């Protein structure tokens, strides 16, 4: 009986073994149960004494009941093996499970990135105002290496409309990353020219 549990090489042999196990276990349950019911019948004529016959029937019923339980356990093991085989080899359902999981993960990733992008846009707006305020104040320590966000926008606007004046200080012209004063924002001119004057 144990040799039937050795794993066969091919899937056909494996599935045939599953079929055989199923048939054997169901047959075992039904036969043993039928025999128990037959043994329960009280017979008047016995070859041995009634006590001996009773003991024999008692022992036989015990063994048959144990056979029924063993067959039930074997069926549970068969169901467990079938579940395992299904998980590993049922490609249509595995493909569907993979595509569902991929879809869920992609949705989560897109939602995350969408919220991050919205957050970035909001913070960029606030940062623009903050930088304008900071770089136009006298507390700024800007050295001209990094272009502030507000200046980047100013430069972009001036490139888009070349008719406007592009600078009022020579320092600003020489320094590539220097500030670009705009007639449209006269409030910044004082601060930027002050900064330009502070450069060596």
């Amino acid at each position, binding site marked *: 009986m144990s040799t039937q549990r050795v794993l066969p090489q*091919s*899937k*056909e042999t494996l*599935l045939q073994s*599953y*079929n055989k196990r*199923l048939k054997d276990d*169901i047959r075992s*349950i*039904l036969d043993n*149960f039928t025999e*128990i*019911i037959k043994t*329960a019948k009280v017979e008047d004529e016995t070859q041995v004494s009634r006590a001996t016959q009773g003991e024999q029937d008692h022992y036989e*019923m015990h063994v048959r*009941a144990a056979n*029924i*339980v063993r067959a*039930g356990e074997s*069926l*549970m093991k*068969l*169901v467990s093996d*079938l*579940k395992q*085989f*299904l*998980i*590993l*080899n*049922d*490609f*249509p*359902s*595995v*493909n*569907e*499970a*993979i595509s569902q*999981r*991929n879809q869920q*993960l*992609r949705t*989560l*990733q897109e939602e*995350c*990135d969408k*919220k*991050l992008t919205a*957050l970035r846009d909001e913070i960029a707006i606030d940062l623009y105002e903050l930088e304008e305020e900071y770089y136009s104040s006298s507390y700024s320590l800007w050295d001209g290496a990094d272009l502030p966000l507000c200046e980047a926008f100013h430069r972009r606007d001036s490139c888009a409309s070349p008719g406007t004046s592009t600078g009022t200080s020579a320092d600003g012209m020489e320094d590539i990353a220097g500030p670009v004063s705009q007639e449209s924002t006269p409030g910044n001119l004082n601060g930027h020219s002050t900064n330009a004057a502070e450069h060596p």
Partner: protein
Amino acid sequence: MANDRLRALEDVEKEIAVILQCAGNIILELSKEKHNASLLDRQLAQFTSAVNRVESELSSQIRYLTQVATGQPHEGSTYSARKDCQMALNRAEYARIKLGELGRTCEVLLDPQT
């Protein structure tokens, strides 16, 4: 789809327990001096139907696997989607940490007592 088949197999496991339960109840009832015939009939009907259901369900599962199984290993994976999602969550976590630091810096600067 996969869950339906696995759920069906779990129902089969419950049916096997019902088979053993009914067999035990029938023999218990027969051991009494006075049998309850209606209970015996009910239990026997339940036993027979459970055995038939288990056999038919397991046979159909084995037939389906015979048609579907190839013997080759499945090489699909969700690794790339998981990695992309993990990176997105890392980006969000990093942004949260940086905003937290910014918030604490602003609180420190605005609070004159610290």
